[in-house]
């Protein structure tokens, strides 16, 4: 319809000069600022990550390992408001507030490690599949399908179970599950780009695959990968917490899921706090990254773009 022609924001050319891409990001930021929900998400993320980073300043770190809950064996199951334990304590005398704050740090660590690992793996696998094509592509994609054919949580659960309960193993399990999406995205992009005539042009000029890769494929893959990564920053923590809730984290870890499961034992006796506060944190964390990821997708997705 004629109107769109006037209203639509100019879509950035696939692999335009750096200038256009910069302008694109300029637009993006403006878009983000315009969208209230995304802004809220951003604010939450900033708050959470701030809490994670400044945890040592917020609350006295436990020695020697600050990622372990400090346990006050003299004050088990204290309700919120107890002096020294504003949010109460767990059945092991752990200070819930400490868990809440350092849990953020644990979660940040978890999500950063997992996401970066998975992005790299996805990048490698996806690019190999996309560029080499043929048998290798076929094989890799089948592999991807197989990984996709087991529900995320269950797969991670099985892996973590086999590796034994520890935070490190949770990281491994999640990494093993989350790389698949990226592989798909990247492969899709590579193939898409390969079909674009200007890449052929580049070939004609005698551009090396590597340069095409760095000049065209990578920059264009960024957008979808960024969106996925943002969403995963939240999902990783969500599933990670679920695993440790089920009981696959190491003992006494300052992690939200662990605290929730500890608190669960006490709810019948009316001890609601030990599970409520940490769980809330998981929710907020996941919510924040979902809001932002969702916002980004709406903005970046060309389909919705025309409609906005």
């Amino acid at each position, binding site marked *: *319809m*004629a109107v769109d022609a006037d209203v639509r924001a100019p879509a950035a050319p696939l692999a335009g000069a750096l200038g256009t891409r910069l302008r694109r990001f300029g637009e993006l930021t403006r878009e983000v600022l315009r969208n209230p929900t995304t802004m809220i998400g951003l604010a939450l993320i900033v708050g959470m990550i701030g809490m994670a980073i400044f945890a040592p300043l917020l609350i006295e770190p436990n020695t020697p390992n600050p990622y372990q809950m400090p346990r006050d064996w003299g004050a088990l199951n204290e309700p919120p408001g107890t002096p020294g334990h504003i949010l109460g304590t767990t059945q092991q005398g752990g200070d819930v507030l400490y868990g809440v704050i350092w849990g953020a740090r644990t979660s940040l660590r978890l999500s950063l490690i997992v996401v970066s690992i998975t992005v790299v793996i996805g990048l490698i696998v996806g690019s190999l599949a996309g560029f080499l094509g043929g048998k290798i592509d076929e094989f890799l994609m089948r592999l991807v399908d197989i990984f996709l054919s087991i529900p995320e949580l269950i797969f991670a659960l099985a892996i973590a179970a086999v590796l034994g309960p520890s935070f490190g193993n949770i990281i491994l399990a999640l990494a093993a599950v989350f790389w698949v999406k990226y592989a798909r995205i990247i492969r899709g992009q590579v193939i898409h780009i390969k079909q674009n005539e200007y890449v052929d042009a580049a070939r004609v000029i005698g551009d090396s695959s590597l340069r095409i890769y760095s000049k065209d494929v990578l920059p264009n893959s960024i957008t979808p990968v960024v969106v996925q990564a943002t969403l995963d920053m939240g999902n990783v923590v969500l599933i990670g917490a679920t695993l440790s809730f089920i009981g696959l984290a190491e003992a006494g870890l300052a992690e939200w899921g662990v605290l929730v499961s500890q608190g669960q034992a006490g709810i019948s006796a009316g001890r609601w706090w030990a599970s409520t506060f940490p769980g809330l944190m998981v929710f907020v964390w996941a919510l924040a990254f979902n809001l932002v990821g969702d916002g980004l997708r709406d903005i970046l997705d060309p389909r919705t773009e025309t409609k906005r």
Partner: protein
Amino acid sequence: MTFASAPEPAVDTAGTVASVVGLRVHFESKAGRVHAVDGVDFDIRDGETLGLVGETGCGKTVTARSFLRLVPMPPGVHAGGSIYFRPHVRCSNCSGLGCDVCAGTGRLPVACGECAGGGCPHCDDTGFETIDLSRIPERQLREIRGDRIAMIFQDPAKALNPALTVRSQIAEVFSQHRSDEVLELAGLGTSRNPLLRRHVSQTTRLFERWLLALPPMRSQRRRIEQVIDGMVAAALAETQIPNPAKVMQRYPHELSGGMKQRAMIAQALACNPDLLIADEPTTALDVTVQARIIELIKQLQVRHESAVLYISHDLSLVRRVCDRVAVMYAGRIVEIGPTEEIFANPLHPYTRGLIAAIPSRAHDRGQLVAIKGTVPELIDPPPSCRFVQRCSYAVSICGEIDPELASGPGRHAAACFIHNPPEDAAELPSFSRVTT
């Protein structure tokens, strides 16, 4: 004089089925207010074919859609003006089949509610019932949509619902506007059964559909279906679709482009409307089909004697199809008049440009003459001739005042100072001298 009514002398006696007066439709966009349609006036006479031509984005589609209020609002804004429409009713004598009472049109005009035909401001002294499409309430508009005014869309592939069979899509029209007739033909005209009525008008609830599937009402339902099938088949047959009874059971994607458009047309003419709006009905089709579709539209129009608003960017096509042509540019009508006159003696520089651009023997070795420049930004346009940047005859005044549409020589009007210069003008544009 204002040109609320048609500017030309009332030589021909035909009434006007619709008249657009000072229509303004704007769009809110991030960049600002887009004046897509900015003061458009024209009439459509009974039974005529009016061509509305112009480049993409000149606002012709918006104008057309404004008739049925299909412009999405927001972002669209109805910024002023009206679209007057004089609906007819089906001839009571022949119930739409065509007889001498209604001169074979199957339609009869309605007397103005205010003056009972005497003529009053309300009906603009025509004595006919006149309604303002841009103001009437939604439900009254619904009665007109598809019944008195129908529309053929540009791309049948998009305009037909992929999930419904052709039959059920055309049936909808009858269900909406012909439910009584359907009941009549099904021999249930007397039936007070609300369920059947709701069934015909497709407003049944889920459990009601179950009820209808049960023996007592099943047979009646069947009869209704058969009647509708008949009507749909007839409508399709009109568009010369080979064995319609079969085709109508198909899904759109199972039909060729031409077939789709025929179905589209059948759907549009199903209720024998007073006005048919054809929005570039052939552009989405391949050339071989185009001709036949156009032919079809013309035939049917002749048979139904309904007026047609034919939107197109293709002058040569308009020349073949239309009685009159309105040339639109940047949200304005720049020139309007009988087809042959326009082509014989285009008044507006833009029209000249367009005509010159038509590939023909006139230009040796088919070289194309293109109009320089592009359509101006329609965001908050300045009070000047919209064409001034591209006009080779423009003079200072063109950039200062906005020329109005005024009747020039012959029976047609144009919005250009070349033909109706303002009293106090230092220099005047003319086709003789070309400014650089």
